[in-house]
């Protein structure tokens, strides 16, 4: 079991009851970010029509950045990163307005 904080920014909180920060507990031995994404889709998106805002073709939708403790997940192994207790996983939609 692992206990992490999950954060939605850049307007993504809209599909999570407008709440930016969530405490998440996931059962299992080695829980990867990929598992977390599956968990979020299955358990946290209240309106199933919103799933396409978060994932596309089985992974995070293009235009969303994923951060592990404030570092780009590409620096940490991407989807295969194994969560540790206390990690903060942030998802932020890229903004385009100016």
């Amino acid at each position: 079991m692992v206990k992490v904080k999950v954060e939605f920014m850049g307007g993504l909180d809209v599909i999570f009851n407008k709440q930016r920060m969530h405490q998440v507990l996931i059962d299992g031995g080695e829980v990867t970010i990929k598992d977390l994404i599956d968990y979020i889709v299955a358990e946290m998106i209240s309106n199933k029509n919103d799933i396409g805002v978060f994932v596309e073709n089985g992974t995070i939708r293009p235009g969303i950045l994923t951060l592990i403790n404030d570092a780009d997940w590409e620096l940490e192994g991407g989807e295969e990163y194994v969560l540790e207790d206390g990690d903060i996983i942030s998802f932020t939609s890229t903004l385009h307005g100016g």
Partner: protein
Amino acid sequence: GLEKEFPMSLEEYRRYGRQMIVEGTGGVEGQVKLRNARILVVGAGGLGCPVLPYLAGAGVGQIGIVDNDVVDTSNLHRQVLHDSTKVGMLKCESAKQVLNKLNPHVTVVTYPLRLDGSNAFEIFQGYDYVLDCTDTPLARYLISDVAVNLGMTVVSASGLGTEGQLTILNFCNVGPCYRCFYPKPPSPNAVSSCQEGGVIGPCIGLVGTMMAVETLKLILGIYTAKNFQPFLKAYSGFPDQTLRTFKMRGRQDSCECSGKNPTVTREAIESGEINYSVFCGSRDYNVC
């Protein structure tokens, strides 16, 4: 000669003195760097409005402004460089009038056109740095691609609602570009404009002001190839004002523009082979 002893006029010393004495600006030497700098600002909207007067005030020698949009009442809550008497005027011309009065030492060049693959190279080539103050993914890919092909560093920012983001792209031809971060464009339906999503004036204004700070730091040499680390800053205005710094990936070998085997070349962009409208999808983005 005299110019070496007195590289600036007395009026310039008087005008810039209060910034020249700040630790880190490099004094006279730094001020001359600012005077020799040519900065291209694409977009005179919510981000451009604070960027432009601070760059002009600081004494940047030449400022180019690309914008083919006109001032509209619905912009004025955030585009505070313009005003109600200028509704209908080109934003680039409106901005030029203000900057000329603020600092007559600065040369302001306007480009009242829509940036595209066929005109961008010619415009960019006269400048040292490009500031992306636009409002669509299409423009963001185009600006980054052209800058990479010309070896230019980009200060890129955006905002919506009460949030904003800022990054530096293609720093010194070694930093990541927009395509390194976003190899695939977002689906058009996932993109909100300020028109639809709305925006708080000083929130987007703060991000624009941060762009001006980053630009001064680039010109003054605060960033070096040694100390530069790819980053993305995320600002949030409501309910608490916070600024987070995310450590970002470096330049990607696989990048189609800045990678080992680039296909997004100058020729491909100029010829229209790279079709940005098709790449980013056909939705019509409202100007913000």
